[in-house]
């Protein structure tokens, strides 16, 4: 079955917005459960179907649905599901619940909602660069539209109730995806990450919960969801991100001053391999792209834009290659196709 959004390029890849070279994207996710149904660990199939029906009806009534695409995971192949994962539209949890799992996405890919994940509703907004305000505005808006029509599980003391107490209260997870090769190369990253964990924030790798840190990309998010208002939580993350970007830019300046030749060599070797390789693994791409991204950000490489680098990052991923080929590839073919796709991006520039 064809993926309805296959030809749409997600808006958050655009590479526009504040500091889009260092902060690749910002994301806010809100968890909500509907009153009158058990949570995901105890819920029955009929309940999940009903939840989906009710929510979609609301979106239609409120005239939100026409501008959004509805994707039922049930009809998709595994690689099509992984495609959605790579586009940051679904999570692994939703994938494991494919039978009644649905995701609704708007045209720009900037607002989406998962139905029947760990919580009944997971509303999310992703914007390019450092832009938590837009993310919150869109997420809150969609949550309010649904909240006007359906009743959320809410406790006067504990706030919005979620399946896991780590989300209770605001149900809010705000995060920024940030590129920190400077801090890694100057070996300050340990100190920085330790500092982050001490102020109610956590860090993870590129693809969310439980992923490895690849390509010097870190996802920084709030750990606390109760005891502070949504705005306070977002403000806190915002200020910390500002400081992080500052630290990173300083680290890069120092690197360039003290080891300019080394950096330039690293950057251009990476560029060379990506431009010419005939077969390449995704790990290697992540590492090389990190150097190239640094090069673009420091204006060493003028031929590529941040938006192109972002596209290379996503379109070289496994499932994106499978979808382009129309089938699940073996790893040899995938590595070849990956190199081909990357060469074409570099040539077009």
């Amino acid at each position, binding site marked *: 079955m064809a993926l309805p959004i296959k030809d749409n390029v997600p808006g958050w890849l655009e590479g526009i917005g504040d500091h889009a070279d260092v902060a690749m994207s910002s994301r806010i996710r809100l968890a909500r459960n509907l009153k009158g149904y058990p949570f995901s660990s105890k819920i029955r199939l009929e309940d999940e179907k009903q939840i989906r029906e009710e929510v979609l009806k609301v979106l239609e009534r409120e005239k939100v649905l026409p501008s959004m695409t509805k994707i039922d995971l049930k009809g998709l192949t595994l690689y099509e599901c992984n495609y959605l994962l790579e586009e940051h539209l679904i999570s*692994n949890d939703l994938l494991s619940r494919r039978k009644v799992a649905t995701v609704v996405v708007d045209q720009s890919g900037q607002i989406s909602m998962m139905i029947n994940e760990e919580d009944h509703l997971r509303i999310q907004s992703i914007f390019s660069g450092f832009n938590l305000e837009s993310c919150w505005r869109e997420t809150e808006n969609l949550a309010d539209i649904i909240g006007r029509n359906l009743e*959320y599980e809410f406790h006067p003391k504990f*706030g919005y109730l979620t399946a896991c*107490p780590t989300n209770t209260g605001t149900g809010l997870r705000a995060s920024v995806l940030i590129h920190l090769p400077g801090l890694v190369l100057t070996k300050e990253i340990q100190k920085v*990450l330790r500092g982050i964990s001490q102020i109610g924030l956590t860090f993870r790798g590129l693809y969310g919960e439980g992923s490895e840190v690849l390509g010097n990309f870190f996802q920084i998010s709030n750990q606390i969801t*109760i005891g502070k*208002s949504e705005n306070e939580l977002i403000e806190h993350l915002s200020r910390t991100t500002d400081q992080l970007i500052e630290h990173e830019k300083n680290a890069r300046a120092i690197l360039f001053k003290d080891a300019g030749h080394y950096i330039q060599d690293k950057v251009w070797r990476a560029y060379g391999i990506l431009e010419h390789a005939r077969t390449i693994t995704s790990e290697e791409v992540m590492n090389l792209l990190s150097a190239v991204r640094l090069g673009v950000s420091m204006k060493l490489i003028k031929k590529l834009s941040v938006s192109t680098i972002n596209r290379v990052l996503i379109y070289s991923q496994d499932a994106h290659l499978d979808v382009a080929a129309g089938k699940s590839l073996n790893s040899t073919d995938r590595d070849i196709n990956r190199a081909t796709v990357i060469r074409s991006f570099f040539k077009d520039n």
Partner: protein
Amino acid sequence: MKCENCKKNDATIHFTQMKDDKVVSYSLCHECAEKFGMKGAKHDSKQQLAFTPDSKSEVLSELLQSKGPDNNDKCPACHSTLDSIKDNGRLGCGQCYFTFENQIDVLLRRIQASSFHVGKRTSKLDDRVYKDQIEVRKLKKKLSDAVKKENYEEAACLRDEIISIEKRLEVSK
């Protein structure tokens, strides 16, 4: 490479974690990863990892530490017990937050620094309705206890009280 834990199987799950002031890497096989509470580990992809510092099993096993008077309680709505909550790594339903209110309060204050929500509230509810709803849930719990203890007179009184509050809630809608 072999799993760092059992040293028998091939390691297919790799993750990194902050330990003291270092970034530490671990490599485990699928079975050992499951044993450490990493449900749903995507073991066929080199890039996906399963472990996070705030792993849900760890977090919820905290719940079992507090030995309150309701340790053997069952949630009247979804029949969850503290044991089943720990096994699932999740609460069963909204009513669980009322049934196990004390333990959850302690847990939240431990893992989240506060158990009191100060952010957005649902727009339909005002103070009176909040209080009524809490009251109804409390009474329903008392009712199920009374029925269990075969205290039918008390149960009947409670049921009447519940009906009258629910009528009031209906009117206020």
